[in-house]
């Protein structure tokens, strides 16, 4: 079975889950407290104008009728108009999503770059000082709430040491212009355009939020790396490789680490979802113009259309992410390929 066929099969399999998500988000967002019609009509509205607004929004119809028109609109790529920004929700989300994804990706990259070597070190020197040290560091890093770490980092690096820029978004627009949009990821776009000062500017803005998000992902990644590498190192086939006189490096990299990669990839998928969720808090602290901050505002303002759109997008992202993890595991392990 080849990769493309498996991918197609998994994508088809995702359709029922997506339909479930549509139903649940619709119901949930209608269960939100607050009356959107009242909010939308404004503080000066009387009962009459509220009723007018309600009719305009279609909120006076039955739940089923509302649901059907919601699904119909969605089929045409219309997620409705945000009650607060007045923009189509889809456009809002598409505009803001790259900021969140870039931040999440940077956080995961940071976490992997720190946690995987730590896990490898801990596993190859099990029980040593390095092992205990990295376990305690990683645990402490994970023990603090993300927003607290974020505030602490801002306090130390921006306020006290003055080496970090103001925590106000992706790029300081006094000095920099956004790079020409290509992927929506400022770092990639700036690098492609060769605008290295912009690149540095964007990187320095991203460092603190990415580190605060990444710290929280260190523990699961380091732990699973250590555990799965220890399992691989203790396995029969590593003993065989040693008995064949293969070099330490060959045994560790080709035999142990490749076999240990599979659980790590699976955990990375989960961690990515968590970090995407944690964005909601971090974006608020750093004035990051992503979807997390957008969703928080939408919930507070009873903007159920935007909330629906946000949840739907996140669910789709999770499903795609799971697909990606599946495909990665298939690439890493021929046995999974056989199971199909």
């Amino acid at each position, binding site marked *: 079975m080849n990769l493309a066929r498996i991918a197609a099969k998994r994508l088809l399999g995702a359709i029922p889950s997506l339909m479930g998500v549509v139903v649940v988000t619709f119901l949930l967002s209608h269960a939100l407290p607050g009356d959107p019609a009242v909010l939308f009509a404004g503080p000066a509205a009387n009962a009459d104008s509220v009723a007018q607004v309600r009719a305009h929004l279609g909120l006076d119809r039955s739940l089923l009728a509302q649901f059907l028109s919601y699904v119909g609109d969605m089929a045409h790529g219309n997620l409705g108009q945000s009650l607060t920004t007045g923009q189509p929700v889809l456009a809002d989300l598409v505009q803001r999503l790259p900021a969140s994804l870039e931040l999440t990706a940077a956080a995961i990259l940071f976490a992997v770059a720190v946690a995987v070597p730590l896990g490898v070190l801990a596993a190859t020197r099990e029980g040593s000082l390095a092992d205990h040290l990295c376990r305690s560091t990683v645990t402490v890093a994970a023990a603090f709430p993300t927003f607290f770490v974020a505030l602490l980092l801002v306090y130390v690096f921006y306020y006290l040491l003055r080496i970090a820029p103001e925590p106000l978004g992706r790029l300081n627009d006094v000095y920099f212009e956004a790079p020409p949009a290509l992927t929506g990821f400022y770092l990639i776009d700036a690098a492609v355009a060769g605008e290295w000062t912009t690149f540095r500017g964007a990187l320095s803005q991203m460092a603190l939020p990415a580190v605060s998000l990444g710290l929280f992902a260190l523990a699961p990644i380091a732990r699973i790396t250590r555990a799965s590498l220890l399992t691989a190192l203790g*396995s*029969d*086939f590593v*003993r*065989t*490789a*040693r*008995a*064949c*006189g*293969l*070099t*330490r490096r*060959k045994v560790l990299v*080709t*035999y142990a680490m*490749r*076999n240990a990669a599979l659980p790590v990839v699976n955990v990375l998928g989960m961690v990515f979802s968590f970090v995407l969720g944690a964005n909601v808090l971090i974006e608020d602290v750093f004035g990051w113009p992503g979807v997390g901050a957008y969703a928080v505002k939408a919930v507070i303002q009873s903007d159920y259309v935007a909330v629906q759109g946000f949840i739907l997008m996140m669910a789709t992202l999770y499903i795609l992410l799971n697909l990606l993890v599946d495909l990665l595991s298939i690439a*890493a*392990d*021929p*046995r999974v390929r*056989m199971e199909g």
Partner: protein
Amino acid sequence: MTALAAKRALAGGAAPPLLAVEDLTLDFRTRQGAVHALDGVSLDVSRGEIVGVVGESGSGKSVLAYAIMGLTDAAGHVRSGRIAFAGRDMLGEDPAQLSDTLGREISMIFQSPRTALNPIRRVGLQIADVLLRHGNMSRREARARAVEALARVRVPDPERRFDAYPFELSGGLCQRVMIAMAIACAPFLLIADEPTTGLDVTTQAVVMDLIRDQVRAANTAVLLITHDLALAGEYCDRIVVMHAGHVVEVAPAPRLLQQPAHPYAALLIGATPGATTRVDDLTAIPGGLPDLRQALPPCRFLNRCARSDARCGAEPLPTRRMGDGHLVRCWNPL
């Protein structure tokens, strides 16, 4: 040790044996205290000879094999003794020297071949890894040599099987791949640790015949670790019987099967199904292995033995010569 002396050692004849284990004592440190896994174990293997090490599970056979390979678990600790291979002191070698020897001069076949092979690496590449490690050759050449090695152990369609993963092969084929890997560099000594465990009976015979044919052709010595006395009797020149970390008897294979001198060896033979015995005639050996963490009497078979007397628990075991190449460590041999 000079190269010349090593060569002379390998030449056989009056020279010292290829492998000589002398008085090896090995403990495992555990939370419950030291486990006395091997105590004063001695054996030797000459060029071209097939020597069986027989005993029930826990008798120390595999520990001995791993000790020879320098693969003892980190908790293992050699208290005394010597392991000489081709005149070299294996216990004194540093890891780099040892890994030059392993796979090239001494190699090992493990039990349960499915888990002993890397599950996500093509079997041909695993053989090529060994060839590339020990031979100065290109990848292309290593591939050709690996296909040759597969053909030599009679893997059908070796060119195609090179690209197979272990899970795509039967247990018997996996064991052939292991054998191909072990003999790829034409070692002087092959250690086979229960090579037929987990294989069905017909495959067992095929695998054992294959090992015997290959080593006889190359004059390779074999240390066959097995709990199956009948198997050892069929394929080995000499048999070493181990019990609870002791070597209790050494004899040429036919002699051991016909005239065992140690009560444990006799009981083992009585517990082994053969062509002439029916299952009803088999007798179980009473008791179990002693707890190797405790202080042990000189004879560790004492509590399971019908012939024991006061000396067995008090005085060091004598080594008695029962015939040509037949040694037994017992006060009251049969």
